[in-house]
């Protein structure tokens, strides 16, 4: 027994030991794959031929390109994707807010985007504006689009397009995502939870302290039928204190937020015309006034801020330190060393495609150092991760430290890559079915789980699937096959309808082209455009693809043959992985 414990300890120490300084066992990927990996990771498109050539000519060019790619608007989308995988905002499987009342005329899809993206947009804004990352918990502004402004009655000019800076207009303190209504509409407080679930979300997301994931051992003797006794016990019983001593004071900051304002409750309230007696048993639960659920929604109430005291719960504090409200909470989180380390750990997990809990401590530490030394510059953190030898490794001379291997293209990346290459966006209209008042109009099949394939293609649904599946699955294959067919058909039809000079694909050929050189040139260009694979038109891979085209031509027509070729390329492992 002792020997096995010692062995386990030794193995654990071996696995966790940081590598010796200067010891880098990694053999880099070829220049083209290095460029594509970083480009796809940052902006969801492959590197251009000129960019690949620059990396081939000068290995240091990749670092400069990475900085440049982070200036692309597409990097902002990546930042949002990354944070959605940590915050679980894009949950379309629970009833969304419907386009009724002042929101009539908008689509369900648009309303969902406006609400679920609100805190993600603030984070995107912080990162892409080169603000210190801790601004996400200290910002005195929030971002809103026109629909969100209608929903919450925000002071925002309807004439302005897109997401613009404004403030919450209900008197709440402003502390970045800590005071986001949409964060707390997504992360509810149920029953006698007293905002603990929300506090645990904040602790887990911002500090990587998953208090709620700890074992719960409750000794007998507590009268569980008495909520006051339970509330007292969590501050005195040994089995409870280890979690509640930190959780409850953190949760105490959040009592100003309504426990829950769900889409269903909002829809119910509107159906009832927002007028009913306050003692109506059918009134939506969890808020002090039924009309809070009507537009503009009131998700904050100054009068509830100190209601923790009604339950004899402890006052607001931060891991033992006293705090002065939400703004001060944001400052204390920003000063906490765990904040930077957690952000680094989560970013490494996202780019390396491992769970944040599984990121090696020495990796978390060294990227935290970069992050802190940069003044919490998130771009500097991401830059360090994607230009690091681990991220760019093809092989390793140390079996204990293998390379990452092929990385899977996420559904969100795939959607943007496909759009860039083929112009195709997989959007459907699910209203063909009986949907009553629950109709979604245009729905992106790679960005949705109510109708679409995001989680079946390996993504999260933010509802029950909280970690991506980075490995191929049969259902992901089915999704990608269908996507390839749809995109190929669209690309051929739209490209051949244009004059050659205006096309982005198939510029070298017409449907009637039979010249071998032109066909090879077109196929080599498709390999470059679709896969970032820059081949000589006389190379064997181009010959193999030409043979596929010829085989299809013998069975069908030129357009179909091109469709098959493009669909095949979109199924290639270079399209699946990067």
């Amino acid at each position, binding site marked *: 027994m002792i020997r096995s414990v010692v062995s386990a300890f030794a193995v654990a120490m071996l696995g966790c030991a940081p590598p010796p300084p200067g010891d880098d066992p990694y053999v880099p990927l070829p220049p083209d794959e290095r460029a594509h990996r970083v480009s796809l990771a940052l902006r969801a498109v492959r590197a251009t031929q000129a960019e690949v050539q620059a990396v081939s000519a000068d290995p240091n060019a990749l670092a400069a390109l990475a900085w440049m790619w982070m200036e692309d608007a597409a990097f902002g989308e990546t930042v949002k994707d990354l944070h959605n995988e940590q915050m679980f905002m894009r949950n379309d499987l629970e009833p969304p807010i419907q386009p009724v009342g002042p929101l009539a005329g908008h689509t369900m899809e648009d309303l969902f985007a406006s609400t679920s993206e609100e805190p993600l947009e603030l984070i995107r804004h912080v990162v892409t504006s080169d603000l210190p990352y801790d601004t996400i918990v200290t910002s005195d502004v929030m971002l809103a689009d026109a629909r969100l402004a209608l929903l919450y009655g925000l002071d925002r000019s309807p004439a302005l397009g897109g997401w613009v800076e404004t403030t919450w207009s209900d008197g709440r303190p402003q502390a970045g995502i800590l005071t986001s209504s949409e964060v707390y509409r997504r992360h509810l407080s149920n*029953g*006698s*939870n007293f905002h603990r*679930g929300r506090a645990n979300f904040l602790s887990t997301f911002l500090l990587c302290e*998953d208090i*709620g*994931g*700890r*074992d*719960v*051992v*409750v000794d007998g003797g*507590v*009268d*569980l*039928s*008495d*909520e006051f006794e339970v509330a007292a016990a969590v501050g005195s019983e040994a089995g409870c204190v280890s979690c509640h001593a930190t959780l409850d004071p953190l949760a105490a900051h959040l009592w100003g937020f309504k426990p829950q304002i769900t889409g269903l409750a909002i829809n119910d309230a509107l159906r009832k015309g927002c007028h009913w007696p306050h003692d109506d048993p059918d009134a939506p*639960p969890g808020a002090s006034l039924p009309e809070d659920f009507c537009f503009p929604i009131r998700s904050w109430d100054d009068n509830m801020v100190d209601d923790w005291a009604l339950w004899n719960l402890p006052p607001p504090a931060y891991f033992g330190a006293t705090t002065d409200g939400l703004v001060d909470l944001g400052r204390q989180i920003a000063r906490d060393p765990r904040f930077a380390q957690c952000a680094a750990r989560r970013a490494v997990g996202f780019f390396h495609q491992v769970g944040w*809990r599984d990121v090696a401590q020495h990796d978390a530490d060294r990227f935290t150092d970069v992050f802190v030394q940069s003044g919490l510059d998130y771009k500097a953190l991401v830059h360090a991760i994607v230009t690091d030898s681990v991220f760019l490794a093809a092989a390793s001379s140390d079996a204990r430290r293998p*390379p990452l291997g*092929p990385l*899977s293209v996420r559904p969100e990346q795939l959607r943007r890559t496909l759009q860039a290459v083929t112009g195709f966006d997989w*959007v*459907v209209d699910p209203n*063909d*079915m009986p*949907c009553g008042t629950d109709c979604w109009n245009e729905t992106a*099949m790679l960005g949705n789980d*109510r*109708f*679409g394939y995001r989680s079946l293609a390996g993504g999260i649904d933010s*509802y*029950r699937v909280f970690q991506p*599946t980075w*490995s*191929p*699955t*049969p*259902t992901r*294959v*089915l999704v990608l*096959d269908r996507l390839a067919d*749809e995109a*190929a*058909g*669209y690309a051929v*039809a739209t490209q051949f309808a244009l004059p050659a000079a205006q096309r982005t694909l198939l510029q070298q050929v017409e449907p009637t082209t039979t010249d071998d050189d032109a066909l090879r040139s077109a196929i080599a260009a498709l390999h470059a455009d679709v896969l970032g694979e820059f081949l000589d038109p006389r190379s064997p*891979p181009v010959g*193999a693809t030409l043979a596929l085209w010829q085989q*299809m031509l013998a*069975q*069908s027509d030129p357009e*179909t043959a091109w*469709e098959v070729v493009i*669909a*095949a390329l979109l*199924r290639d*492992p270079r399209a699946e*992985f990067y």
Partner: protein
Amino acid sequence: MSPTRRNVLLAAPLLWALPRAAFAASRRRLVVMVADGGWDMTLCMDPKPGAAGVEGPEVDEDVDDPEDREAIQTFAGIPVWVNDTKRPAVRTFFEAWAPSLTVVNGIWVGSIAHDPCRRRMLTGHESTGRSDLTVLAGARHGADLPVGSFDCAGLGSLGPLAATTGGLGRTGQVAGLLDPSLRFPAALGATTDPRGDLPTAAAPAVEAWLANRRAAYRLTHADPRAHLDALDESVVRARRLIDEAADLTSLVVPGHEPRMDDAVDIAVGLLERDIAAAVLLQANGAWDTHVANVNQHGLYDNLFAGLTRLVEGLSGAGLLDDTLVLVTSEMGRTPARNEVSGKDHWGHTSALLIGGGLPGGRVLGATSDTLESELVDLATGLPDAQGALNKYDNFAAGVLELVDVDPGDTLPGVVPWRPG
């Protein structure tokens, strides 16, 4: 040896591409049905009449309705709360199947947060990234089938065996991939393929081209996470799903969460036709009754109606003796109600086991009068003051043993709970 996809393949090379006849005779199967959100065991299989502080179903009786009365009735030795007004399906199920049913009370989950509890009960692990019980059983017993396991609930944890799995999608989306007639139309003005499907005749040529491309890619890329193996396997399995499972999608209405009856019929169909060896199902409904715990009555009625349909379906197909059905919830609910007549999270739960050759008519494990898990003899499952908690990992290891999967591979060092 941990049950990675690569290890499974090394142990049984290319089993997933082989004919199934050699396996069918001895195949073990597993169906896991989850009441996701947290059930209140005191309304049904863990009755606590007279226990101070435990509010059972009797508090919901309508005094003005003489038909709305709760009673504890014993079926084949299993005491259960019944109410023929609110939960008629409970009686129906127990009258028919109690002699084959094992009730397991007092499973210690050790958390009161949904996701950690779900992870613990379905995988036996606290940590993320593990394969759940259906995935493990499916990989073991469905290696020759189109897929090992099929997730009809959207709750599964695929882990390293992801390439062995299939999924329905939360609202049956996979139907649109298997059956072209079930696709959503393109949105107005949206971009989509105006030419329709590629010719079927193209498939062999494309597959041959892709096989060469994948082989070339493999030559130049280290693959420490075995993603390329997983891709090869997934491609074969995806083709087989199209060939063998497409017609099951007739039970799916795209865009809508499948009704319990339909999901059950899909599950039985998947097993009966040897498309999968394990299925994960969900007992529909909002079980997380922080408000109005009274809603659990209807949820139980729905659950037992679905369970009856499942067990009858398996029995009718001659599969029940080989198929273990596990019904559980990731957590229980507090003994007493909160200020809005709901019940909050509770780190103890129960399970129902039926089929798979397991004897029935018994209750194993127990909870105290404060609804906390009692110690049991893990070798028998019976209460034992000198025993141990039946923790989520013990229970998961025990379920794996019951379906002939070595729990030592995935839960090394964990003592399996054994039902006598």
